[in-house]
């Protein structure tokens, strides 16, 4: 019982981290048409940016802002320098996936070259532990969950109620028709890279906080979990990604409590494959 509860606690934290990343990834994909496999590498770049600011003396919770800025800038740069030029030249979506994989390696090795291959961790305290009806969570873990909830509500509100959010959904649904409505799709796409890049930097930092110590390639496997959550929910569907993150986060951590923890990523994909066999478009389908 307490093993189950403990693993549920871990699962919720993993879900919270994963949800931020998966929502960013899926929105990016929906609006820009790029399945950006460099997403996890940009997460790491954000985590390192936070590390630098944290090293310089700032609290990690302040450093998160630097990570978001770094993620936004790096993503916008990747869009301008890599993805949009290739899209303009008519590169097929599958070609862009391969290009993004190459980009991931370049970003990752770039970080490794700058930071060295060493593991780093933030200067921070984990805070007290709290017993929430058997769920044991630290203050830091509670903060991560709270940040994630705020992001989810914020993304929901933006997509539903703001002009920009609706323009993003319209652009995702039908870019040409959006332009015929007068929406400057190119600008919406650039803003989307910035916003989802900020989520990416945030996700990278809370990921690094959660795992404790990290290096340039720490998010490699996490990318797999992001993809599982995104496709479980239906690619391009932000609410699907939230649901997918919850299922994958809980599924991997709870299973890890009962079977060898090394298999938890296998579990993620077993869940995904089983679900896709039943609903090939994902839990909530493709649309946001």
């Amino acid at each position, binding site marked *: 019982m307490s093993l189950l509860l403990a693993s549920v606690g871990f699962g919720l934290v993993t879900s919270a981290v994963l949800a931020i990343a998966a929502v960013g990834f899926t929105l990016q994909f929906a609006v820009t048409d790029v399945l950006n496999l460099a997403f996890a590498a940009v997460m790491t770049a954000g985590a390192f940016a936070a590390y630098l600011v944290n090293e310089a003396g700032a609290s990690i919770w302040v450093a998160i802002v630097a990570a978001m800025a770094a993620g936004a800038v790096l993503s916008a740069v990747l869009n301008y320098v890599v993805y949009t030029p290739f899209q303009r030249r008519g590169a097929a979506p599958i070609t862009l996936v391969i290009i993004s994989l190459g980009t991931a390696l370049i970003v990752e090795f770039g970080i490794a070259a700058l930071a060295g291959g060493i593991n780093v961790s933030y200067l921070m305290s984990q805070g007290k532990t709290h017993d929430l009806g058997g769920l044991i969570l630290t203050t830091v873990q509670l903060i991560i969950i709270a940040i994630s909830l705020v992001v989810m509500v914020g993304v929901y509100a933006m997509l539903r109620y703001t002009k920009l959010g609706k323009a993003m959904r319209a652009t995702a649904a039908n870019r040409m028709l959006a*332009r*015929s409505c007068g929406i400057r799709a190119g600008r919406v796409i650039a803003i989307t890279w910035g916003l989802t890049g900020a989520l990416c930097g945030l996700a990278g930092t809370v990921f690094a906080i959660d795992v404790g110590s990290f290096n340039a390639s720490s998010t490699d496997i996490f990318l797999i979990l992001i993809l599982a959550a995104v496709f479980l929910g239906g690619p391009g569907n932000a609410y699907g990604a939230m649901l997918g993150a919850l299922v994958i986060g809980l599924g991997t951590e709870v299973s890890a409590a009962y079977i060898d923890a090394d298999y938890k990523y296998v579990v993620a994909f077993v869940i995904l494959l089983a679900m896709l066999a039943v609903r090939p478009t994902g839990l909530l389908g493709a649309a946001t």
Partner: protein
Amino acid sequence: MSADALTATGVTAGYGGDPVIRSVTLRAQAGQIVSVVGPNGSGKSTLLKAIAGVLRMSAGKVVVAGRDLTNAAAEVVARSGVGYVPQVDDVFAPLTVRENLEMGGYLVARSAVPDRMEHVIEVFPRLGSMLRRQAGKLSGGERKMLAMGRVLMLAPSVFLLDEPTANLAPAIARTLLEEQVTTLARSDAAVLIVEQRARAVLAVSDYTYVMGGGELRLSGTPAELTESPAFVESFLGGHRDQAIQRSEADDHADTGKA
């Protein structure tokens, strides 16, 4: 010439290979309904796409209200007061009906949006009862009405309508042409409309262009065209007298599809 809301001159465009339409010239004045008819594949949609900025033209010129929009980006064309309803993919499927209308009014000041929406619902009353529904789950006819309502939100000075009556029952199609499309033109906009239902659209047109094989074949007022035996033969299905006497039920005799 400057009185024309829309002038397209020598438009030549295609999809990468040989041009699909060659040197098409047409004009429409404010308050006019100008129709384009022709068999399937004759290039009607291609022409509208080129005017709407969705497709690059390799030659030609498009002027809207005195402004040169030749090969302008689609969003620039929209910002110049051109409302385009494509033949397919004409709504934002995952968005609700209300959100679709809001996107149609994207360029409209926020404070003016509710009034515009009210006006659109006056013109298309059925939209009013389905504002919360997802556009992708509407019937083909409901979708077309939404697509029309969407461009009406912009209150454009030029409407480009690509087969707005597709998927509509013949009687409803006729009503749409006679009432709603006519309403659009009455608001002092120019309506350029592509239609398969030659007879029905002729009845509401001020002027009609006939396309064939990517070129303009004929043009004239409906009265002039119905004097042309070749036109009557190919588009209205039979001799002129017979054609005119045809029963209502045949009214949707489709150009080219027949």
